[in-house]
């Protein structure tokens, strides 16, 4: 204290200058948080150089205070500003460094929740169904173990008619009465097509109606790459007071364009199915080659997709409809075939072997 009294204003002013120079030098050298803290303590700490000077001001005369006070105060603010500037500089640097360490390799594979897959035929069925559902068709089902009546007779395929040869049939063994012949007289069978659903539905519902019926069907044959003893079909039926062939063309074109692309062309050829008249085959331009000819379309430019036609009056009559008052169209397609075309599968047996290496691809 005493000694301070000996210091003159001039000396103090000189001290302040030195302190400032010292501080500016020190700040430049700060590299770590600790060094920063040391500098702060040395200048602004309880016994810091600047603190000491500010404390000693009380010993000066009012006049002297007026000279030294503001100078010392200005220096303190300068020190404080510089230090906080330094702090934020150092913080920014720290953040940048931390972020550099946080780098991850985004090209590494993700961690997946283990998932299974739906069967390709289910995927295809859902796809086809959704297109028709959007056009107001209801999805209905029917039994796989059918009666001869619904599978054949109600569809205008009478007993002893050669049209029955179009469907190789699995018959169900019935008890053979004693002394009876060995001929198959069974009236139960595994349905050979989804068309019985038409007959069943019409029996219980009045027109107008729009339905599709997906389901499993069966054929009595030796399985090979293109024929299976079972496969899936989707049947369609629209009946109303005035449903025409032109209507059928519009609905089927809409469906085929959704499934195979907007530029698809559709063509119709006459054929024979006992439950429709006229009966038609429906081809779509090859979606693989665009109609130029390739292996998928066997170089014809066309792929056969659907069987279709206007519902036969005998089918309406069997269902209790008056064919003079209603008309309608029906169509059917093989889902396995659609899936084979879409996914370029060359052996239909793959669908029922259930090898995971196959199923995982869908």
């Amino acid at each position, binding site marked *: 204290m005493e000694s301070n009294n000996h210091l003159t204003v001039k000396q103090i002013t000189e001290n302040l200058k030195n302190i400032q120079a010292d501080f500016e030098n020190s700040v430049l050298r700060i590299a770590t948080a600790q060094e920063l803290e040391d500098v702060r303590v040395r200048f602004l700490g309880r016994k810091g150089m600047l603190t000491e000077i500010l404390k000693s001001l009380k010993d000066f005369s009012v006049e002297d205070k007026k000279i030294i006070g503001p100078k010392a105060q200005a220096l303190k603010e300068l020190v404080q500003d510089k230090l906080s500037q330094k702090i934020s500089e150092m913080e920014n640097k720290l953040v940048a460094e931390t972020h550099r360490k946080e780098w991850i390799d985004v090209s590494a594979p993700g961690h997946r929740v*283990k998932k*299974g*897959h*739906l*069967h390709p*035929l*289910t995927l295809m069925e859902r796809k086809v169904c959704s297109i028709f559902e959007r056009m*107001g*068709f*209801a*999805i*209905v*089902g029917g*039994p*796989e*173990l059918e009666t001869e009546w619904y599978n054949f007779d109600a569809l205008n395929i009478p007993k*002893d*008619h*050669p049209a029955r040869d179009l469907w190789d049939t699995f*018959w*169900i*063994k*019935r008890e053979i009465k004693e002394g009876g012949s060995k*001929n*198959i007289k*069974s009236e139960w069978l*595994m349905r050979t097509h989804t068309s019985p659903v038409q007959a069943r539905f019409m029996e219980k519902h009045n027109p*107008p109606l*729009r339905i599709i019926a997906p389901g*499993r069907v069966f054929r009595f044959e*030796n399985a090979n790459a293109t024929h299976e*003893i*079972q496969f899936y079909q989707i049947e369609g039926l*629209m009946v*109303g007071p*005035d449903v*025409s*062939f*032109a209507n059928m*063309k519009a609905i089927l074109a809409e469906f085929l364009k959704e499934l195979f692309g907007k530029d698809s062309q559709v*063509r*119709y*050829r*006459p*054929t*024979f199915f*006992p439950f429709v*008249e*006229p009966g038609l085959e429906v081809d779509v331009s090859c979606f693989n080659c665009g109609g130029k000819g390739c292996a998928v379309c066997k170089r014809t430019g066309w792929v056969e997709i659907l069987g279709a036609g*206007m519902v*036969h*009056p005998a089918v309406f*009559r069997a269902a209790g409809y008056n064919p*003079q008052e209603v008309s309608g169209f029906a169509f059917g397609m093989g889902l396995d075939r659609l899936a084979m075309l879409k996914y370029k599968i060359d052996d239909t047996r793959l669908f*029922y072997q*259930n*090898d*995971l*290496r196959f199923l*995982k691809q869908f």
Partner: protein
Amino acid sequence: MKFLYSWIKEYAPTTLSAAQAAELLTRKSFEVESVEKIKGQDALLYIDILPNRSHDALSHLGVARELAAVSGQGVSKIKSPHYPFKESRKKTSEVLEVEVRTEACRRYCARVIRGVKVGPSPRWLQERLENLGINSINNLVDATNYVMLAMGQPLHVFDWEKLSDASSGKKKIVVRLAQKNEKITTLDEKEYTLNDQMVVIADAKSAQAIAGIKGGSVAGISAQTKDIVIESANFEAAFIRRASRALNLRTDASVRFEADIDPALTNLALEVVAGLIQKLAGGEVLSGQVVSGHWKDRKNLVSASVEMIQRLIGEEISEREIIRLLQNVGCNVQKVNLEKILHKTVTSLAGKPYKYGASATREAPNAFDCSSLTLYVFRALGIEIPRISKYQRFAGASVKQEDLEVGDLVFRRGKTEDFGHVGIYVGGGKITHADRVQGKVITETIKKFFQNGKLKWQGATRVIKDKEVLLVTIPHWRRDIVLPQDVVEEVLRLWGLDRVPEKMPLAVLQPAEQDEVRLWLDEAENILADSGFYEVKNYSFIGEREKAILAEGALIELANPVSPEIKYLRPTLFFGLLQNISINYLLEKRVALFEQGKIFSYSDRGMAAERLFLSGALFLNKSASSADVFYELKGSLENIMDKLGIDDFWLDDADVHPVVGDVLWHPVRRAWVKIGDEVIGVAGEANPLVLKQYDIPQRVALFEMDFEKVATLASAEREYGPIPKFPSAIRDIAVAVGKDEKIDTVQELIEDVGGSLLLDSDLFDIYEGENMEPGKKSLAFHLIFQSAEKTLTDTEVDGMVRRIITALEKNGWEVRKD
């Protein structure tokens, strides 16, 4: 069938190339599968003739007619085969008689040629046959084959000498049903045993041919043959088909007869073959055909209005165009008023005698019963109605008495039958009908028809929709055109299927009905796929191996299995899934599969029943504990139930004996899957003995559910519950219980005692092993307490926990509290 293009062109002169003709036929008639060029600028067409056209188009003439029709020339340009011949003075009927004893033979025509020279056919004939895959035998047999390929009529030649004489001194051909077990040896020296539903061609003594299928060896042609009988006949298609199937003998002849060929073709083809044989083998053709059988040729008429044709196609094809196209096919088309034709027909039949059961084809128009009269009259109008009055009642729309119009069928109740009698309303309050009492066709007032009200009105049916129609006479060779819709098909395909514009239908905007089972099934499938299961699809059949495993229970069996593996309908999805695991487990750490599909079994009443099942199977190559595989599967089951909104699902292991396949399941690790009190399936592990049969080395857990039952219990309805306003308090306790103690039992006790303020008790750990008394396990629960009204104090919560602990301890369970 294969066709020679040069042969087709012989009948249908055209400048089209074979490829052009094939394209045209494919687009408008039937599919030409391929065109094969052969020597001599000729081509073979492989045409897929379907059953509806096998009666006319399994012949070169038939395809030629079709080509003429679709190329726009019309069948009038057709040059039919024709070989002129000279007849002798001697009449065929002087030496040959034919007796048809069965209705199964519609017509039998025969000719006799004497003094033929059997020898090889000329080169051109041999080549044609060989190109079509038929061996040349000799000029006689070749001639019959040639005419069959040309015209579609199967023919047969007998050696005159080998037929036995009848008592009249003539040769006699008898067409009759075979006797039961009658034997015949066919041309290829095979013996067949016949039944009494098969038709044979016999001489005075024995069968010489299986009618419509194959000739016998006795009267076959040999090098020594001099005199011959040529047969050209027609049979009921169903008889030939049944016989051909029963004998397992399909021939070029049987295929054609099955297709119901035109009976009028018999006479035409016989003339052609007689001419050809005389040309090839010489001989004296006796004069005239001997013809027998019940068939009467008749005009086939179909009426169709232009409006109906346009409506069904959806495009206004002009009347002129329609007529032109139909004429191209060989139809004769007249614009008529059906009322006028009806009056004319009815008038012409007045007074014809009544005969019960009179045939509308054979006895009309000489005798009628009530419904054969109406059938006959409507055939004249080009409208086909059923034969029996009962079915005629439903051949059109119902009409009230006051709305009767000309042509409506009027029904009268009989003494015993509802639709005892039918007549035709002819206008002016009058009905024409074949009357049993007066014994003839009469026209009388409605009042008299109903005998002044003594007899009852049984409804009226309107069969005629449009009166102004095109009356189309169908050419005799086209037996497939019988309905107006058949006429539409002809018009449509000839006009051009692709020319019809697409028109979206106008329909009532009614939302499509949704199939609930299907919706829930989709949800369940999605959940399973999302939780690591792969969907599989197996055969709907099982074989002898699976039947042996099942040991008991009646399986539904195929009458015609393709192999021992595909013999019975699957009663469960179990086998398919095990099979799938067995082929996949070597490559995978985890095989999780599911399948949805129909299973089949006999119901209690012996009916076949099918149910939609959903099953899953899980195989883990490595697992921490032996029960992991079961619990992981159960977790998936819980996921499904959660998604389906079913919360009272549980597994019940008391008294589990599945109806089907008890032996399939592990003897103790199995449970009923229940929703509430209802059993909906089974879950558990596969029986180790069964796994062994499938070479599966580790445990497999499976579930099977009757998905129709599940779907009826499913509900997507969820209700929002308010987010709690007051905080919850959580306490953890661990209960040491015996290893066999069920978690359900412990948890139920906790929840019972905990009461309504115990929001949830969540099992978070099951521990066995070190630090545990042997034979014990520790169950750790989070107990979550919450009130909707206030914040629970520690004292309140601790009190509840104490009560729970006390209750647990009363059961002898040791409780540790954190």
